[in-house]
């Protein structure tokens, strides 16, 4: 049965399976874990980012498309939800309309971008998406009336999801089951379904065509697949996943702003997570996100602790300044691309297979991002 | 020049030993072994897809041999960078001619002259063989016709004396009148002492120039020997060339060509 749910794409490594199970269980019971606030917030961020990273992996790892516009779609989703809930009644129908609106805009934009990829080389395409994402980010910052500019928007969420909505009168594990719980599990389920959907997608005939296109575009075209149609489709699908994730995140935060959606750092975070997790694995998204969330918390704490001791020592003091978190992120990034190109999942899987037959080739090095 | 009647020592200029080349997952060269006599002209023949171009590219280091050894007069050149291999005395005419279209004919030639200066006399001689080069000296090479580009490509390879000339179909797309000029130019180089390895689909040319033949098929060498032996065996000609015509050709060697004695 698990074979079916996971669309035949088994973890293929004992350690990986164990890891995934632990993460899954943790995410499933997060609202009951103590302390409630930051842990649950972290869990939601993780759930949402898993979808963003997994859909990004479909693009980069399976289709060979590098799109810096991916987080722009996340932003579109978030802002659609935010704007509709702010300007209209904070009720479920409005929420659905907002999400639908975001998805439509996303699908159109992604389709257009996918269409553009036809005439340009992969590398040019990457740069175009970067430019487009920058333009969107500026747009968000400047159209204050619509988007709240640099300050962002705050809004109410539908009553059913509010903490004031008590669902069960008696407490479970000392926690009040209210609207927040409902929201958390709604997000959990939606993300779970989307994740399984992506897994199914890449293991389906459609997914195999994507990989064929990635390996050798001309041959795929010669066999009869319209490369353009596939690219447009996968662009739309991945973008819509990111859009949905953005909407969910905005709903949880009850806030949307440039810092949570369009900043370059989010794109970098996604890149880091996909590289560390493992490109072209989908499961890599889960591992990468988990690693990142943990690192962000604990590594930061560690560096801050070092900082306490380093006061007075000139170089070390500045290096461990908590504001320099990006420096360490960048270094981590560079090191993982160098020494760890398969990511965690890729390496674990290779080790498993190596014990059996010959070692599989590194995904990162076989991705011929060609013309 | 050894005295008549004595055994000629065949010094090897270039030797390939069990060379394999992989392009991606394709195993193109599957154990290529042959040697080229110093100062000789060797024709590398075979069907399309036999691996002839790949062999030349592997020698030049443009594609890396995954296995095997390539030696230039006892010097191992298999793993050297292309530029170093070239500097050891190679002249190379690639299959696609390798013309720099946005540079002028003059600039193409200047690049080819590694010593930094164009030898006036030699250039004049090349102009004699290939008049369009002089005519279009300051024109962008991209504007030349196919045949003219081929002339430029060859001229680039021989603007300075080279030890070894690797030619990949130098007469492809060239009008018959020009072919004679090309053959003459090659004969000049041969007289200078250059070793020539020639991939040629034009068998008249191959037969006119080559003393030795290497026949390739399916990525390996099926025959390596003298032109006489090759021509005398009709099966070889047919299997390699796909038509029986080779057997019927009876082109006499050009005057002045040194007669081999074994």
């Amino acid at each position, binding site marked *: 049965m698990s074979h079916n749910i996971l669309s035949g794409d088994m973890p293929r490594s004992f350690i990986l399976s164990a890891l995934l199970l632990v993460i899954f269980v943790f995410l499933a019971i997060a609202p009951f874990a103590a302390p409630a606030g930051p842990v649950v917030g972290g869990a939601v961020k993780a759930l949402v980012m898993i979808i963003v990273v997994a859909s990004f992996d479909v693009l*980069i790892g399976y289709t060979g498309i*590098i799109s810096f516009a991916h987080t722009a779609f996340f932003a579109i989703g978030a802002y659609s939800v935010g704007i509709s809930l702010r300007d209209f009644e904070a009720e479920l129908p409005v929420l659905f309309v907002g999400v639908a609106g975001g998805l439509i805009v996303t699908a159109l934009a992604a389709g257009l971008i996918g269409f*553009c990829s036809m*005439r*340009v*080389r992969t*590398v*040019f395409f*990457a*740069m*175009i998406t*970067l*430019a487009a994402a*920058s*333009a969107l980010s*500026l*747009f968000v910052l*400047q*159209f204050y009336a619509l988007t709240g500019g640099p300050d962002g928007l705050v809004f109410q969420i539908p009553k059913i999801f509010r903490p004031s909505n008590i669902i069960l009168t008696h407490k479970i594990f000392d926690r009040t089951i209210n609207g927040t719980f409902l929201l958390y599990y709604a997000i959990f389920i939606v993300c779970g379904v989307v994740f399984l959907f992506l897994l199914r997608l890449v293991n389906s005939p459609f997914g195999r065509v994507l990989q064929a296109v990635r390996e050798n575009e001309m041959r795929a075209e010669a066999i009869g697949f319209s490369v353009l149609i596939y690219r447009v489709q996968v662009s739309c699908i991945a973008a819509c996943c990111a859009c949905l994730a953005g909407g969910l995140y905005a709903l949880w935060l009850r806030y949307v702003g440039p810092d949570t959606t369009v900043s*370059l750092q989010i794109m970098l975070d996604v*890149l880091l997570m996909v*590289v560390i997790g493992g490109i072209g694995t989908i499961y890599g998204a889960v591992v990468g996100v988990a690693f990142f969330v943990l690192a962000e918390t604990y590594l930061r704490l560690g560096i801050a602790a070092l900082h306490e001791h380093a006061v007075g020592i000139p170089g070390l003091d*500045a290096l461990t*300044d908590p*504001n*320099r978190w*990006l*420096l360490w992120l*960048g*270094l981590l*990034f*560079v090191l993982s*691309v*160098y020494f760890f190109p398969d990511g965690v999942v890729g390496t674990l899987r290779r080790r498993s297979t190596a014990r059996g037959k010959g070692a599989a080739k590194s995904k*990162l*090095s076989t*991705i011929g*991002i060609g013309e | 020049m050894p005295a008549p009647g004595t055994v000629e020592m065949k010094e090897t200029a270039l030797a390939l030993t069990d060379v394999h080349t992989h392009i991606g997952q394709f195993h193109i060269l599957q154990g290529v072994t042959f040697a080229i006599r110093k100062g000789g002209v060797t024709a590398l023949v075979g069907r399309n897809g036999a691996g002839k171009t790949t062999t030349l590219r592997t020698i030049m280091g*443009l594609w890396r041999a995954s296995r095997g050894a390539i030696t230039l007069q006892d010097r191992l050149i298999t793993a050297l*960078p*292309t*530029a*170093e291999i*070239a500097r050891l005395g*190679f002249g190379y005419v*690639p299959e*696609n001619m*390798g*013309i*720099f*279209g*946005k*540079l002028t004919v003059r*600039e193409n030639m*200047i*690049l*080819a002259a*590694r010593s930094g200066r164009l030898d006036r006399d030699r250039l004049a001689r090349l102009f004699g063989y290939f008049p369009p080069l002089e005519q279009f000296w300051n*024109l*962008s090479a991209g504007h030349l016709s196919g045949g003219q580009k081929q002339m430029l490509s060859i001229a680039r390879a021989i603007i300075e004396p080279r030890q070894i000339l690797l030619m990949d179909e130098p007469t492809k797309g060239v009008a018959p009148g020009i072919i004679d000029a090309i053959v003459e130019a090659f004969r000049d180089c041969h007289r200078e002492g250059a070793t020539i390895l020639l991939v040629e689909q034009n068998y008249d040319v191959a037969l006119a120039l080559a003393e030795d033949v290497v026949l390739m098929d399916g990525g390996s060498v099926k025959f390596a020997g003298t032109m006489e032996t090759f021509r005398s065996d009709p099966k070889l000609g047919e299997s390699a060339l796909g038509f029986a015509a080779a057997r019927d050709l009876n082109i006499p060697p050009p005057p002045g060509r040194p007669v081999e004695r074994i």
Partner: protein
Amino acid sequence: MRPSITNEWVRPVGLLLAVPALALTCIWSPATWLTLTFAGLASGIMLFIMASGLSMIFGLMDVLNFGHGAFITIGAYTGWVVLGLLGGPVSSTHLSLNVLSIVAASGLAILCAGLLGLLFERVVVRKVYGDHLKQILITLGGAIVIEQLVMMIWGPQEKTLGLPVRLSGTLSIAGATIERYRVFVIVIGLAVLVAMHLVLTRTRLGLIVRAGVQDREMVEALGYRIDRVFVLVFMAGAGLAGFGGVLWALSEGSLNSAIGSRTLVLILIVIMIGGPGSIAGTFVASLLVALMGSYMAYLAPKVALASTVLLMVSILMWRPGGLFAQEKER
């Protein structure tokens, strides 16, 4: 000089002339138009100086350096430091001293950026030749690290940068107010362009580079170690970026650690429009983008960047390789 101007120039130059002409019809006042045009030209030239290096690197070795902005940043900060030390010549009323101070600042900026370029090539780029994905990722990572180091050394606050006395202020040309500094930049920029052109067309090195952009393999087969040439080009590109950084910071009057990444997006747009590996393309594209930006900033500031992106997309649809696309032989 190179042989006669061929057809490939006609359409791009036509486009380049069309933009200001169109702008004139939207901006009724000739004086305003003149001011904006000079501003655009000056910005365009600075963009060109910063972008040319990256364009050649990309065209020659197919290397995408998303960390190019780091060279701009380092150059800008070096210039700031030097100009800070040369308070005297900067505030002097002698034009020659003013110019000299900029020369000194630029010279050191070029040196530092060039050295950083060497380091970057050795440590970061060399390992990932041929792999675009890794290149993008690693150079991005490298760029972040350098930007953070800059913040560490100089702090995150914005620094102000004052123009030397005789180069600041405005001139009046045909009733329009033109900033003196912009005229200065245009003069310098044209000088750089001419110098580049001479190096590329009159020297052997330039010849190798021009040939290498078209067919790297053949250049190697002719006996030239193109990887060594590449290091030089990389360093030169980095140095130019540093130089551009100084000029840009002076024109903005301030700088912070993000100056490089800010301009990187524009530079990438310029390279794509102009066609990688072509100095002419980079030049025309830089002017195009900057002029467009200048006019749009006046006419409809909120959509300035978006319109630039739109311009880029339309040009790429028309000519996928860029205005002066280099057809690679292989």
